[in-house]
């Protein structure tokens, strides 16, 4: 018998989350180098309306891409946190994003079609996560300190790979390399949004299917096994889905840090650690955060654009330091 008072706030949380995302979307459409007049857009007729429509049609894919990438990174972070029983797990800090970027960059250097870059990023993400998790294991347990240290080492290594590729690549390819290293949504097109969507959808569906089992795993692997979960299969599926989400996000937007750390942390403070609520709210929150951060990156020093990764790091790094300080 769940009391009515417990249900009402939950509904409000969702209304608030979706409203926030909608507001972020409108902000993303409205701000940029050129100011958009909503009255022109809505008036419908004449040259100003045409211009307004043109601006929206140019900015809409960017907003959509930011939303998908933000949702994918936040979901990936939330799932990895439950899986590793560690609130500090984040695709960027654990080197997963770096591995994905290196995979995509190497594929580009090898002349592989850009369409295959998500696959290369996915493989890079898996290789990196597996490597870090294997090295950080001590006595059958994942050690938190070692996990973060090996994540740092992986990031340094993949930066070297990217710089290496960057120095031998042609100048046009070099620009792409820079994009992967700093993260950018500037090259957003409808085609990129459509290409990313199936990866994001598949990863989200898999994580959604495992959400209830992740609740049992977040208490402990032995706990989940004793309650009937095939933990090895669950770990594998969640790990692959999270790596795919990170890989796809990196392939289309480069390395954008801290979204997977910040958003689940905030969402957990609102709905608790029930993955069946935490995962969807993280997705909505991640989308809203990245759309807002992208809008900020465009207007903060307009007409120059800040790299989106710099904006998320500016917010995420202090929060990460605060979380580390609170660790016992």
């Amino acid at each position, binding site marked *: 018998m*769940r009391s009515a008072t417990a249900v009402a706030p939950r509904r409000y949380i969702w209304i608030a989350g979706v409203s926030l995302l909608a507001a972020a979307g409108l902000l993303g459409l409205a701000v940029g180098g050129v100011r958009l007049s909503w009255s022109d857009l809505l008036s419908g007729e004449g040259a100003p309306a045409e211009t307004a429509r043109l601006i929206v049609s140019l900015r809409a894919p960017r907003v959509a891409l930011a939303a998908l990438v933000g949702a994918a990174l936040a979901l990936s972070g939330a799932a990895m946190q439950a899986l590793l029983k*560690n609130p500090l797990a984040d695709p960027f800090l654990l080197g997963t994003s770096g591995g994905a970027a290196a995979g995509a960059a190497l594929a580009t250097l090898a002349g592989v079609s850009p369409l295959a870059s998500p696959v290369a990023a996915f493989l890079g993400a898996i290789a990196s996560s597996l490597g870090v998790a294997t090295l950080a294991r001590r006595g059958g347990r994942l050690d938190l300190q070692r996990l973060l240290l090996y994540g740092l080492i992986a990031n340094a290594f993949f930066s070297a790979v990217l710089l290496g590729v960057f120095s031998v690549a042609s100048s046009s390819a070099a620009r792409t390399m820079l994009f992967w290293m700093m993260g950018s949504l500037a090259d957003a097109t409808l085609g990129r949004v459509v290409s990313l969507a199936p990866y994001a959808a598949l990863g989200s569906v898999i994580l959604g299917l495992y959400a209830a089992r992740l609740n049992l795993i977040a*208490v*402990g692997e032995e706990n989940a096994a*004793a*309650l*009937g979960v095939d933990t090895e299969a669950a770990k594998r599926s969640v790990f692959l889905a999270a790596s795919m989400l990170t890989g796809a996000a990196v392939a289309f937007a480069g390395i954008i840090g801290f979204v997977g750390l910040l958003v689940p942390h905030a969402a957990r403070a609102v709905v608790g650690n*029930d993955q069946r609520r935490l995962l969807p709210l993280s997705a909505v929150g991640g989308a809203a955060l990245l759309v807002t951060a992208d809008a900020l990156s465009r207007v903060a020093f307009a007409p120059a654009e800040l790299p989106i990764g710099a904006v998320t790091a500016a917010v995420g790094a202090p929060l990460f330091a605060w979380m580390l300080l609170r660790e016992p």
Partner: protein
Amino acid sequence: MRLEARGLQAGYGRTEALRGLDARILAGEIAAVLGENGSGKSTFLKVVARILPASAGEVRLDGEALSSLPRRQTARRIAYVPQSVDLVFPIRALDLVLQGRAPHARGFSPDGPADRARALAAMQACDVADLAERDASALSGGETRRVFLARALAQEAEIWLLDEPTSGLDPRHRVEFLDVLRRSHQERHFTIVLVTHEIDLAAELADRILLIRHGRALAEGTPTEVLTAENLRRAFDVQFDLAGGRFAVIGPSSGAASER
């Protein structure tokens, strides 16, 4: 016959913990598993709970090999109460108890009113109903132990596996915990397998004692049959004085080396 282990082998990586364990536990019995540290007691529980796979041999439940049954089906029949859990994320005590309903629920999501009613009734029975809304990661050791007992009750399992249930509890919490355990057992007559270092507790509580050494059964039977000075000396490498119905350690064993 209910639970049977035959030639059970299991371990962690290259470390062997069980080296061909044989054991039989009847329905409704309280069985205590005794042995020195590293003898394989907890490993035995983990294999029965399907946390750890057996590398050889098998566990049979009513004559059926455990490994041939679907995991969720065995989780409905066997509840595991861990020695301790390290809760990283906050979780309401009630939600922890509700997890006991997960093996019964569709998609491991025990959200129905019936599940909730069962969980609350189990918390009532274990005297932890007032903790339902509290964060389980902030509870004391004694409270956590009883919350997990409530979870086993909510799981409605016929077999309970308890790993050192009284270790680290002060006398009052120990008495309260054992009270709840005894009461639940009297009401529901399920099978209890408990691992413990307390020989006195085992002698007092158990119908059957399983004495393990180096991953094999050293002796099995009623407390009077098994808890002899000689068996205890062989199991623990120390001399016991059994006078007055107590199990007092009186000194190192002289024949320790010959046991290996």
